């Protein structure tokens, strides 16, 4: 059997961190993506411009660079903010915010993939028949009701393949947080590999975990696809 030389529990806890990170950041990306897609189609010019800038810039810059910018830069920004607050409040408010690697990782990955999700959702919203939205309005539904009852359920069917792709890429991107110091599966495996001098012993199981997670979620998306395709005829 596989002998992880006592590093087994530590790498297992790293796997849990990876899974938590992926799930929380995909939730943030989902919400940002919905907001971005709605903003891209709104009548408000400022909202459209901001959403377009967001997706263009985020998708044009490497994840790792953005992660370092937000992680290292965020700390300095927070420090100068709390310093300003300290003097502005006549030295009454004295707080120190230390950015936690996990929170930084979740926020950054969520922020990055929100841009990809925006594009996925935008395409999916466009695929919803316009007549249906008009019908909803004719029934006297509010904008929110139209969104919740008509747009969202139909849009999801078109968006699912894109969401599935984004999720697979996101899962693999979580490995990058090991670079900014979060003790995820990759970092713990790297430390174990360095101290024992046996890289394959630790990296191959970790790669296996990623493959297993991919396979499990592929199955999950197949189930979801069935659910959201109810009432449509396969071409």
């Amino acid at each position, binding site marked *: 059997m596989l002998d992880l030389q006592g590093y087994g529990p530590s790498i297992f806890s790293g796997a849990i961190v990876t899974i938590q990170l992926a799930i929380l950041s995909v939730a943030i990306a989902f919400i940002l993506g919905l907001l971005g897609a709605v903003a891209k189609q709104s009548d408000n010019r400022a909202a459209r411009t901001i959403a377009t800038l967001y997706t263009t*810039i985020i998708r*044009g*810059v*490497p*994840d*790792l*660079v*953005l992660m*370092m*910018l937000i992680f*290292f*830069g965020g700390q*300095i920004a927070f420090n100068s903010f709390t310093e300003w607050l300290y003097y502005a409040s006549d030295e009454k408010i004295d707080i120190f915010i230390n950015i936690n690697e996990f929170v930084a990782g979740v926020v950054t990955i969520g922020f990055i993939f929100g841009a990809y999700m925006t594009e996925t959702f935008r395409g999916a919203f466009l695929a919803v028949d316009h007549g249906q939205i008009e019908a909803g309005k004719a029934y006297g539904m509010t904008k929110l009701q139209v969104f919740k009852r008509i747009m969202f359920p139909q849009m999801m069917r078109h968006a699912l393949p894109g969401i599935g792709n984004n999720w*697979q890429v996101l899962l*693999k*991107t*979580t*490995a*990058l947080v*090991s*670079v900014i110091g979060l003790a995820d599966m*990759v970092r713990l*495996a*790297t430390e174990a*590999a*360095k101290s024992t*001098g*046996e*890289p*394959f012993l630790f*990296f*191959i199981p*970790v*790669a296996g975990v*990623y*493959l297993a997670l*991919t*396979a499990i979620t592929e199955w999950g998306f197949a189930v979801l696809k069935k659910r959201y395709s109810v009432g449509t005829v396969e071409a």
Partner: protein
Amino acid sequence: MDALLALIDANKIFNLTTLAHYWDGLLMTVQLVFMSLLIGLIVSVPLAIMRTSKNRLINYPVWLFTYVFRGTPLLIQLYMIYYGVTLINGIQDSVFWVIFERAYYPCLIAFVLNTAAYTTEIFRGAIEATPKGEIEAAKAYGMNWFKRTTRIVLPSAFRRAIPAYSNEVIFMLHASAIASTVTIIDLTGAARDIYARYYAPFESFLFVAAIYLCITFTIIFIFKKLENRLLAHLQPR
């Protein structure tokens, strides 16, 4: 002009030394990305043909290769090759150490394998989308498998693959930032050095982000031109 010169004088971070450092990083990034894409492209063509084979013994190993390399993070692949090779007992005394002493070659190997896996799947999709009639016509002309593949299937598959391949090129550019984690001074590596030296994350990382953005736009522009030329017959009239 005076204002600009004053601005250059006033900033402590972007002096000639650091700009030269960024320039070296840019060269490294471009070289790494270009080499890995080129080798990956050459490797992926035979792999894609094998992948579309009906013989399981030929098809299955390639499927496994692409599944594993597309299903695991590039960072893991890089670490496995970088640490895997450098930690082998006795390699530091062998002749191979000349190659593996610098992180460049392990990194290039990891990138080539990764991009080859993605490109193989892109080509597979393009090859499988070849219209049946074209192949039948080629058969009717008496072409054998080799002639059909080189004259009919591959040229049209390459054209169909261009839009998806342009995404892969941009993906590879962004993925190359990972090289900085194994001591290579690419663009990101240069930014990390300058961040560490001046403790100026915004200046150093925003500057490289802007450079990456420019390269991305250049790639998109080139592929748009290429598509307009090579896919002109597929454009809506």
